[in-house]
Structure formats: C-alpha cells, structure tokens
C-alpha cells in the first residue's frame, strides 16, 4: 500500500502540472513527462556538484528541491514556443508538445549521454523506519509528505491568494479577465512555469530512489493521462484523487494479480469514461 502511495505522490506532481496548464491555458502538454526526466538528471548533477563542494548529505532534500525549482526556469522559454499554438486545434498542440518530448530526449543525451545516471545510495541518508517487521525508507515518507504538502499548497494558492483568484478567473474566461485588466500573457507564463516546476521537482525528488533515464518521462505521461481521465481534465483535486487511485490500485494488483498491473488501471479508466466521461472532478482549475 505504501509503495502505491509513494508512486501516487510522484504521479500526482506530473499530473498536477498537466492539469494546471490544461486548466488555464487549454494546452495538452505532453512535455510534462520531459520536465520530470530533466528534473531527475539535473537533480543528480546538482547533488553530485553540491556534495563535491562539501555540502552535507543531510541537505539532500533541500538541494533536490532547489534544483527542481531552478530548472523550472526553462518554463518561460517553452511557454514562448507554445504561445504560437494557443487556440489552435488540440492535434497541433499534441504534435508540438510531442516534438518537445523528442527534443528533450536528445537534449538529455547531449548533456548526460546514454548511460542511466544515479547517485550511489543517498536514498538511505535519512535512515529507515522499522515497524511491525517492515522496513520503510524514511525518504519514501518524505516524498509522500512532499506530494501531500505541494497538493495542499497548490489548493491553498488557487483558492486563497490573489494570484490564485486571477488564475481561476483566467481559466474560466480569459477574455473577460483581460477586459478586467489581467495581463493574460504574464499569467500564462507564470502558470506554465509553475506547471513545469511541478514536473521538475517531481523528477528531482524521485531520483534518489531510482535512476535517471532519458525516456523515463514517457511512461509517466501515459500514467498521468490515466490519472487525468479518472480525475477529470483540468482539475487539481482530480489529479490528487486520480493519482492515489492509480498508484494504490497498481500496488494492490501487483500484490494480488501481477498480470493485472496495467489492466486494472485501464478498467477503471474505461469505467470512468463510460459512467462519468468528464472525470470524477471535472471542473477547470479547482
């Protein structure tokens, strides 16, 4: 179960980025998986550099968070490229963002080569928790907590801050928001950068547990889409619940009927599509 929740936490961050950008900018951004992969690679490099420069290992989490946030600086650049297809047919958006996925894979190969990158065994730097005959790496709990905290912060930001109100208003009706004096272009840049940060932070956070591979984002995009279909496209709450459903269901399937690992998820996806086609929480950026 805990393994499923851990998976759900990383899945939520990528799906949340996808949701936020779609909710506000109406762009189906396949490149959210690439941000995740880039975040992982950049995280390895930053940690290697920081530890080499004498930073204590216990700062691992802070370094990873910082590297994810720093890397989100590519958000405005990518948003500038995507600006050319706002309002265009979804197939154009898919094509362009998929092209970005392929380009980012090459970027990764250019900077980091073809070998998987990992960072020794920093995974256990925060120790292990032993409970009821089970050993749980504390880092897993940290990632789960970070996922929950980010979900709460996102919810709070969207509901309770001025920027959140502007974002929600822009998502509902961009023309009216513009008429009321909202600088839509700036909102879009900020929202996209935030969406990028969710992916890059997700990738950076998960890297001590795994290894960075150029195509690691692709699988996650597919799962993130399952999350989005279950939760409802554009809904932050949907991303949270959808990620939990997918993560936990996958873990239960692996423990009981391993052959059903993917099938179980898609049965739920089909069920939601039939019974509630818009998803469980279909409402833009709420």
């Amino acid at each position, binding site marked *: *179960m*805990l*393994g*499923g929740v*851990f*998976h759900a936490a*990383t899945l939520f961050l990528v799906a949340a980025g996808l949701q936020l950008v779609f909710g506000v900018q109406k762009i189906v951004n396949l490149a959210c998986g690439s941000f995740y992969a880039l975040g992982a690679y950049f995280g390895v490099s930053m940690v290697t550099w920081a530890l080499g420069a004498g930073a204590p290992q216990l700062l691992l989490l802070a370094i990873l968070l910082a590297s994810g946030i720093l890397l989100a600086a590519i958000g405005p650049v990518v948003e500038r490229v995507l600006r050319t297809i706002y309002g265009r047919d979804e197939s154009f958006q898919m094509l362009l963002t998929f092209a970005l996925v392929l380009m980012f*894979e090459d970027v990764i*190969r250019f900077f980091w080569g*073809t*070998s*998987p990158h*990992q960072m*020794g*065994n920093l*995974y*256990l730097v925060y120790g*292990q928790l032993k409970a009821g005959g*089970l*050993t*749980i*790496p504390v*880092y*897993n709990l940290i990632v789960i907590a970070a996922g929950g905290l980010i979900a709460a912060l996102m919810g709070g930001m969207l509901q309770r801050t001025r920027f959140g109100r502007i974002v929600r208003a822009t998502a509902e009706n961009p023309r009216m928001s513009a008429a009321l004096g909202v600088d839509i272009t700036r909102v879009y840049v900020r929202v996209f950068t935030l969406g990028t940060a969710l992916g890059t932070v997700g990738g950076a956070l*998960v890297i001590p*547990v*795994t*290894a960075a*591979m*150029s*195509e*690691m984002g692709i*699988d996650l995009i597919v799962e993130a889409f399952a999350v989005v279909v279950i939760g409802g496209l554009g809904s932050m709450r949907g991303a949270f619940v959808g990620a939990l459903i997918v993560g936990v269901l*996958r*873990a239960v399937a*692996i*423990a009981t009927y*391993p*052959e059903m*690992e*993917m099938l179980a998820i898609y049965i739920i996806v089909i069920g939601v599509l039939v019974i509630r086609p818009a998803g469980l929480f279909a409402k833009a950026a709420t």
Partner: protein
Amino acid sequence: MTTTRRNFLKGLGGAAVAAGAHLDAASAFAQSGPIKIGVLPIKAGIAAQTGEFGLRGVQWATDRINASGGILGRKIELLVEEESSPKDTVERFRKLALQNKVDAVSGGISTGVGLALGPVAEELKTLWLSWDATTQKGVEESMPKAKYAFRSCDNECEAVMASILTARYFRGKIKTVAGINPDYSYGRDNWAAFVAIMKKYNMGVTPVLDLWPKLGTTEFTSHVAALQQAKPDLIFSSFWAADASIFLKQAHAVGMTANTKFVFPVAGLVHETLKKAFTPEGMILGYNTMYFEMANPSPLLRQFTKEHYEKFREWPSYESDHGYFTIVAYKAAVEKAAKASGGKWPSTDQIIQALEGIEAESLSGMRRYREDHIMEANFYQGLTTHKNRYDFVTIDPVVMMTTKQVQKPSGVGLYDWINSWKV
C-alpha cells in the same frame, strides 16, 4: 525496321546481358575500393547504452584492421545507421543494401528487430552479422536454414547458465523462489527456463510469485512490497538495463538484500550501475559473453579494456565483444575464402561458406559461427563481491561455461535438450 515480339525480347535479353556485364564491372571496381560495412546500433531508449558499447567494439576492430592494412589490402568503411523499431530498422537495412551497396551489415540487438531483419537479409541477399539479436520465436529458431543471416547465441543461454549455478551454489539453501522479469519474450523465456532447470535438478523449490513489470520501468516500490509479502528465499531477475540497479536499490532500502538470494543472469551488461552500496555480495551475476576483469586476460582484452577506459571513462560490457567479433569473423572469412580461391576477392557466397564454422579470436577468447549460423562463445558468471577497487560489484569466482554447455544444439528444442541432461 519493324520490331517483332521476338526481336524485342532478344533486345531485352541483350540489354540484360550488357547490364549484367556492367554490374560485374561495377563489382570488380568496388572490390578495389573500401569494404563498406553498414552498422545498426541502437541510439535511443533503454538500450542506447548497449548500442553504444556494440558500436565501440565494431569501431575498435575496424580501426585496428585498417591500421594494419585492411582486409586483403582493402580498408573498411563503416556506414552507421540506427536500430530502432523493426519497421524502421528494416528500411535502414534496405537503404544500406540497395543504395549504399554495403558488403555486409553488422548490428541488431533486439530479437524483435532480428526477426524482421533475417528475412530481409535473405531477400536482398545481403550478409547480416547480428550482435545480440537472434531470429528466435520464443526459444525456438525461426530460420533454421538461413543463408545470409548470421545471428547471436540463443537468448536464454545466460538463464540456463545462471540456473545451473543456482543449483551449484544454493542447493539445500532455498525452498521458495520468485521471479521479477521484464514483460516480454526474453524475460518470460528466461523465467520458464529457470523454473524448468530447477525441476530438472530436483531442487525442491516452489515458485511463489512471478512479477512482470514493463521493460523500462523505473519504479519498483510496489513490486518490492509484493516480494516482501511473498518472502521468497531467492529472486531471479532478467533485468539488464537501469531496472537492475533501481530494483536492487529499492529492495536494499527495505532490508530485502540482507537475507534473500539473488540471481541476475545478465545485469553484468550494466555492471557499473550495480553499486556496492546496495548490491549484495554472493549474488549470482552474469556478464554474458565478456567479463571486463578477468584474472588472466588475453593481451587483446587487456588492450581493449585499457583503451576503452582511457577514452570513455567506462569499463566495457559484452556488447562490445559481439560487435568486435562480427568484424573479425568477416575478415577471417574473407581471408579464408580468398586463400581457397587463389587470392582473388571472394564472392558473397564464398564468404558465407567460409563463415560457416569459422573461428576467430574475439575480446573474450575464441568465438565461432556454427554451421547453422548461430554464434558460439564463452559465458561468464559468478558470485558478486565487494572486494575490488571500484564502487560497484565484480564477481569472484569467475565461472566460464561454453555454449556447448549452455546452448541447445542445432535443431533441438530447448526443453527436450534440458530434459536430456544427466544431472
């Protein structure tokens, strides 16, 4: 003059003869230029690193041959394309054969691609020397009478060897086994072979769980949890990419590496990722057909690993040896065929004839092609140790088995062969 049907056909025949003569002239001309060898390494995705290692082996062989005067005085020119999906790779193979008119194509890692390339090599009459790809459907050969296709050792060789070593090292120490293997033919066939051999050796073990994560999975926490629940004494895994180290890291984090035994027949392909920090000692680890750190390496292996490390800051994997062998085997075959035909450059048919049964020194020792075009090589596996100068595990002792011991003979089914063993 009126052109009758007969005259037209005669003319056509004449033209064909002339065209044939032209082709002969062209091929005679080609025989004085460089030998063109097409190369098909994987460049993207989970096996990109494997492709890179294969290409390095081909390049190293080529550089050495060219530096010593080429093959019968002709230099080798490599035309590097890419292995990707079967369909796209077939297109690139066609381009190499028809447009670039290569003398041979070296490459092919995925058996999915191999199954597509084999028939095309036959159709285009182009010599294809595979690195790692076979033309097996499951564990059985799909092209027993191939002429132009020469393919790698059987896919399941390393699983067969690891199973034999499991019986040797862990008999009486295990009661339950579990498998976690990539969900495609290779992973499934390896697990089936392992279970069959456990039975053949009367190991008295019960398989308690078999997990099939998708190839390229990077997160195994749920799989590890399921294995914790099943509590197997031994876990068998055919992981061969980043999945090997990720799984071991996650298993180690929950304390599973302390008491469970592990068998990883082919993870030596990514040996540098198997860090001591999370890879236990005493695990059966396979390096397929080349181990980079033999106690008494041949001068050739010593030279290659040294140059490889100096250039790439990496210790090489067996794919380099597969690539290397295809080039030196081609050279040996051309020289053998030329000798038989009085020093003349041999035809493709003569080269093929010479390749059948040819032996050549490769990085890992002597290798050969069987008469049915299947590669024979030595396999290296052993028990992992932390006693070395690296931050990753190596093996000690190093056990070597020949393909005679771990590969089914020509024309025999895998399970018939296993059942025929006297153990």
